[in-house]
Structures are given as structure tokens and as C-alpha cells.
């Protein structure tokens, strides 16, 4: 995996160890649950766990605690002084062409988790060939955030509903790569999906029961993926 996370500081004192480790701090964007996005922290965390399980290129992050409770810290991508810009619409085709496999992975993953708000939430290096960077971020509108009510979100995910009507890489991804990612997601073990969704404890407003229902919905949705893609081929895939 190629990536470049921003280091804020490196402490000069080395820690003991044969690899001469040093402690450092990375820049991150802290995200909290809010009235507008009440399940943001859980959705971000589970999107990351699912993405890492299937190797979808999204920015790494960690669960952390602040004065307001648990929050999600999305690690910033860029160099020490400068984060990368978010992609603009005129860059979508170029990014999809340079990172064809990653773009196809993001399209299928977004459909899988119902993330209808990919928009410009992508970091990509387009003119630095020796440092390939391609990562999606921001998944609060997927999973429990598809609808305002989390149970409605779970219900919609379990149905045969594309949910993602617009996507920056729609019509820019070839069918063969999309099929590859559909196959990969369809073949994930149900137990693995449950492990990604179920934290064995409530997380803020998200109960254990809700987590289990979300996992059940995703297990159904993974099987629906081939049908979702084939019935929306004209909108999703590029022409050969």
C-alpha cells in the first residue's frame, strides 16, 4: 500500500530497541457524532474495518477519546507542511485512469456500504509518479448514515437498492475491474462482516443489537452486489 501520512513532529530522543524507534505525532482530522450525523464515529470506524479487510484504498484512522467522548481521527494525507487537495470534478477521469483498480474498488465499496456522498472526498497524487497516493475518506453517509434513522439505513442496505445514485468514478471504471471487486466482496465470509461491524459493546448511540442488524444487512447486500451492478451497468461502468 502506498501512502503518505503527514508527520507533525518527531521527538529527538530515541526509544530503546534494535530498530532505534522514535516517537512522533501525525496530523489527523477529528470527527464527532453530531445532530446532523449522529452515527458518524461508528460508521467511520466500521467503514475502515471493512475496507482494511477487503483492501479498499481509504485513509487510515483510529478511534480516540476527547472531552466529548469517543471520536474518530482520520489521519491526514500529504507532506509535513501541506495536505493534498481534495479531487475536483475535472480531475475525476484522470484519477480513475491513473488509479483504475483503486477507483473500481471505491465504486464497489461505496455501493456496498451505501456511501452516497463520495463527491470530492478523495486524495490522489496525479503528477508525482514516484509517490502514488489514492485514498478515499469521509464515510459518515454510509452504513448507519444512509438515512436519518439508523434502522431505516439498515433496512435500505438490506434491500436491492443501489443507493449511490452519483459517484465521481461512475462511467470511468471498466467492467472487468468492477467485477473483480464485486467478486471479492461477495466472497467475504459472513463471520468477517460480523467481526467488522460488531464491537462487542455499544459505541456512543449505537447499540450491540444495531451493530448486529447492520452486519446482517451487509451480508445480504454483498450477495446483492452482482445484481446491483448488472442492473445499473449503464450508469456505473465505462464504455469499452
Amino acid at each position: 500500500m502506498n501512502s503518505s501520512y503527514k508527520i507533525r513532529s518527531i521527538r529527538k530522543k530515541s526509544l530503546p530497541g534494535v530498530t532505534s524507534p522514535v516517537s512522533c505525532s501525525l496530523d489527523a482530522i477529528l470527527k464527532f457524532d453530531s445532530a446532523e450525523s449522529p452515527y458518524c464515529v461508528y460508521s467511520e470506524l466500521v467503514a475502515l474495518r471493512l475496507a482494511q479487510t477487503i483492501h479498499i484504498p481509504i485513509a487510515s484512522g483510529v478511534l480516540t477519546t476527547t472531552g466529548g467522548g469517543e471520536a474518530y481521527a482520520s489521519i491526514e494525507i500529504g507532506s509535513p507542511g501541506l495536505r493534498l487537495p481534495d479531487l475536483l470534478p475535472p480531475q475525476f477521469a484522470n484519477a480513475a485512469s491513473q488509479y483504475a483498480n483503486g477507483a473500481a474498488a471505491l465504486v464497489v465499496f461505496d455501493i456496498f456500504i451505501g456511501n452516497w456522498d463520495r463527491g470530492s472526498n478523495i486524495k490522489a497524487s496525479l503528477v508525482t509518479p514516484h509517490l502514488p497516493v489514492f485514498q478515499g475518506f469521509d464515510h459518515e453517509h454510509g452504513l448507519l448514515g444512509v438515512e436519518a434513522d439508523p434502522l431505516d439505513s439498515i433496512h435500505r442496505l438490506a434491500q436491492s437498492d443501489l443507493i449511490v445514485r452519483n459517484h465521481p468514478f461512475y462511467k470511468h471504471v471498466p467492467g472487468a475491474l468492477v467485477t473483480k471487486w464485486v467478486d471479492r466482496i461477495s466472497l467475504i465470509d459472513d463471520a468477517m462482516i460480523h467481526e467488522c461491524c460488531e464491537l462487542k459493546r455499544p459505541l456512543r448511540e449505537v447499540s450491540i443489537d444495531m451493530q448486529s442488524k447492520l452486519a446482517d444487512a451487509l451480508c445480504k447486500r454483498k450477495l446483492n452486489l452482482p445484481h446491483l451492478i448488472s442492473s445499473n451497468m449503464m450508469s456505473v461502468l465505462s464504455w469499452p
Partner: protein
Amino acid sequence: MALSLHFHVLQYIEDPYLAEGRNVAVLAYHGGRGHFRALGVDGYKLTPSHFKSLSSKARDSSWAYREWAEWFHSLSNVREIEQFNEAVNRLESNGAGLVATTEGVVELTDGYGDADEAMDFLFRRLVRAPKISPALAFEDRLEVVLMQSEIAYAENFSDEMVVVEMVSEDGNEVTLEFSHLMTGDRPIGFNTLVMQGVTQRYISRQVQRISSTFRNAVRTEFIRPEHCILLCGKLEDKHQEIIAQLSGVATVLDVFDESTPQRIRRLVWPRS
């Protein structure tokens, strides 16, 4: 008829806690497309030293600024004002890096000119051109030379410092440091030497280090003598003694010489 141009100023803010910024770009939407003027960006040509000169962190971020230059060009291809405004809104919410901090409006009067002239005027007024050190001017020129010679595009060319550990005939470990390296069956090692804006003592130390690396590289048979290349500049008459000293261990090329890209090409690909 008077029209107005609504512009946004972009600052480079390194430390979100201090929130001290330097103006680096001006953005505007006018006439159905985006417009920009940005530090070191002239059409599709980017002079990295302008941004690098802002700070040491900025110096390490030149690759990211190149991505921003590409982004600025794409912004000028944005046709819908909603997309332009969304991009600017995202820049406003940035705490650090490139942040849209202020905005304003200028009138485009009949006598004043068009959007391009207004952007030039705003850029001159709002963005101060930085002073470029000789070391950064050298880096700019070196980048151009590596691209013009086309070795920058070779898959086996390393554009970053490379350290090679070798064992000499007498069994001692030898460390070789190259500013750039072309790997393969017959590696080609490069080192660089800035001649301006540095002390004589600094130059002497560098000459010693570079000579030692090239000698050891040849002695350990890591590199052939003709594949040791020193890229330096600018060479002046007062540097004759140094050059004579280095010429015995490397091919010395002045990066500011117009023929240097061609000479590098001949050294790297002699049969082409």
C-alpha cells in the same frame, strides 16, 4: 459596463495554532470558469523554489505543492460556479496548509481591463514574491536538467538520496552516498554540489565527502569511473582549483550549462 470580480486569497498556514499565514494564491470565478494566480506557477511551468522558500517544512512539501498546482489548473476548468464555490468552501474549512482566508471584490471597468488583467493586478498586490536562495535556484535548475535529460522518467532512476553499503577488498565496510542513482547492471552515481551562497569551508567539506564516495564506489567496483557524475553550479573562474580536484574522480557538469541535459543523456545512454 462595470463588472465585478469576486476573488479569494489563499494563504499557506503551517501551524494551525499560530495561524500565521503567507499569501500564496488568488482564486476567482468569472466568465463561466475559474481563474487563478499562484506562487511559482506560470502557465504549466512550476518553479518549486518559490514555495520551498517559505519555510523548511514547505521545502519538504514541494511535491504536494506540485499537486496543488495541478489542482489550480483543474480549478480553471471548473465550469459551474457551484463546483467552484464548493472547492473554495473546503479550502475555508482547512485549518492548516492552503487555506482560503479572505475574499474581496474588484470592479472590472471598461478602462481597467478583463479578468486576466485583474488577476495579475491582484496577484502582484497580494502575493509577495519570495527571495530565492542560490541553493533553491540550484534545485530548480537541477530538476529541469533531470527532466530534459529524460533520466527523471527512467524506472531505474532514484530521485532521492541513496546510501549503499559495500565491503571493500580488505574486508572493511564502506558507505557510499549518492544524491541520485541509476540502478541496473552498470549503476550510475550522481552527487550534487552548490557553489553559491555557501562558505569555502562548506565547499571543501563537500568536495572531500563526494571525492571519497566516488573513489570508494570505483574501488569496490560498484561503479565504473566513467559512471561517477558530479552535478554542480554555477561554475566560476574562482572554482577552477576545486574542479581540477574533482575532475580526477568524476565527470563534472555545470547544471546551468545549456548543454548539460544532452551530455547526461550521452553518458547514460551512449548508444542512443
